[in-house]
């Protein structure tokens, strides 16, 4: 679970800090920095996991336009397995040779170092926070990702596990691919690997599918089940029953709205609970008005008495009114400058937030 994110010199985020609670909705006008925050967390996660090289996640275009300093800094506080971790990353950019490198990277557990690297040299620590050997790190990759799990560095393994449990997604139904060759435990940013993640669920948590089917059946009573078909290339199929006749549809044959609904419930059921943080950027796109509140209630229900977190971005009035009052984080950006977090507006009247926003009575970007 993410407690806070700090960022400096990253796009519109300058000396920026945002705190999260169990359910939040990021509110702000177009261009206020909501998706920037999501993509930054996605990038930090991918970097820590060693999924991608530094320059593929943090290129020169991510530097704040009006800043001249060459250092980007980030700090992410997360919790997992009853431990509190702080991850720090500094990236140095050389504008002359158009290269960047990891200047400093550190992980603290309960305010004590469990990993630290500076200028290509990393110090390892054991679970008693005692300094261990030094290793050389690649300036383009996270040193954390290069450290193997041992019996005496469980805390770093817990940190990596907590990072793995941050899922950032902006589901794009049009990009959702219909087949998979291999299982993939985590969704990609656009959820274009849905069948691969489905295959992973089939292998590891098949019991979750029946819950998913129950929810899908509540939406469409004709829905029966989903399954994978094929040997090497497995296609995700949907079975419906019409007048006692079973009908099979491929994922690619569903409407964008049906794909969006399935994707939404698939993510909520599989990536909420168990310490997961699910961050969804406009998951309500394509979803019919009738299904919006049940979808939001499903998120709410998934948080009850369990260790989990959900952060949403949405411009849908129903979603705004459901979550803004108690979990709204208001972002504003004046004159295309830096993104700031502002207090929730006290409206003093009985109109809903969405109505006030649509009338321009609450300035999302003040």
């Amino acid at each position, binding site marked *: 679970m993410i407690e806070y994110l700090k960022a400096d010199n990253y796009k519109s985020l300058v000396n920026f800090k945002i705190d999260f609670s169990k*359910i939040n909705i990021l509110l702000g006008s177009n261009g206020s920095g909501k998706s920037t925050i999501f993509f930054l967390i996605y990038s930090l996660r991918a970097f820590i996991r060693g999924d991608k090289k530094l320059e593929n996640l943090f290129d020169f275009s991510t530097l704040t336009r009006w800043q001249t300093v060459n250092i980007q800094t980030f700090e992410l506080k997360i919790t997992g397995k009853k431990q509190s971790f702080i991850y720090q990353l500094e990236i140095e950019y050389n504008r002359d040779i158009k290269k960047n490198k990891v200047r400093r990277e550190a992980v603290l557990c309960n305010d004590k170092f469990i990993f630290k690297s500076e200028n290509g040299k990393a110090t390892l620590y054991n679970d008693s926070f005692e300094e261990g050997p030094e290793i050389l790190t690649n300036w383009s990759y996270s040193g954390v990702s290069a450290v193997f799990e041992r019996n005496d560095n469980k805390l770093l393994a817990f940190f990596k596990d907590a990072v793995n449990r941050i899922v950032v997604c902006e589901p794009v139904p049009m990009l959702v691919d219909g087949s998979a060759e291999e299982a993939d435990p985590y969704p990609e940013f656009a959820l274009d690997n849905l069948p691969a993640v489905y295959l992973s669920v089939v292998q590891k948590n098949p019991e979750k599918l029946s819950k998913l089917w129950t929810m899908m059946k509540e939406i469409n009573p004709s829905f029966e089940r989903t399954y994978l078909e094929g040997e090497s290339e497995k296609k995700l199929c949907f079975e419906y029953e019409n007048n006692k006749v079973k009908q099979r549809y491929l994922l690619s044959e569903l409407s964008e709205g049906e794909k969006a609904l399935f994707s939404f419930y698939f993510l909520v059921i599989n990536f909420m609970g168990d310490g997961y943080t699910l961050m969804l950027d406009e998951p309500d796109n394509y979803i019919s008005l009738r299904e919006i509140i049940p979808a939001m209630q499903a998120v709410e229900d998934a948080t*009850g008495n369990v260790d989990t977190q959900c952060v949403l971005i949405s411009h849908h009035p*129903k979603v705004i009114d459901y979550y803004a009052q108690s979990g709204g984080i208001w972002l504003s950006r004046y004159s295309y400058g830096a993104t700031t977090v502002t207090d929730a507006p006290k409206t*003093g009247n009985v109109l809903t937030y969405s109505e006030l926003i649509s009338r321009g009575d609450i300035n999302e970007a003040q």
Partner: protein
Amino acid sequence: MKLNNEYKYVILCEDRQMECFIRYFLEEQGIEKRKISNVDFPGKGCGEQYVREHFPVELKNLRTRNYNLTALFVCIDCDKHDVEDIYKELDEYCKEVKIPGRNRKEPAVIFIPKRNIETWIKYYSGELDIDEIRDYAHFLRGREADCRPAAQKMSVCFMEGDITGERLPSITGAYGEYVHLVEVTA
């Protein structure tokens, strides 16, 4: 004794904490998720006023639909007032827009937790030292769904008519409202 699960239930309340509590209460009664909807919540700091002003609107809508298997479920904090004052206020708001106040033959129920919904949540979570004077507001802020066990317990108690030992008068009042709704929707 149970609420009629053929009805749709529209919740008018102040915030997500109340909505969660009432929704879990209704679900425990066997009402399907998609038969429960809520009136949008207001911005921060005007929940009670919002409910008062929307009450006549929703009551009118209920009547326009000729009570077509739809019930209105209102929840508003009593705060430091008397429960009776809240009923009177809601009636006054109806008079202002020239519609009759709620009558006892229509499927509209008003829960008025005193001092607030969190009082009931704490009570049904098994806390012993609970009264209607102290303010427990927002103790579950950010964890609104954690109220589910308490809401379920209240729902079961109401179904079983098990409120004889209740120490909170506002719960006894809510039980009366519940019984009324069961009878009207039967």
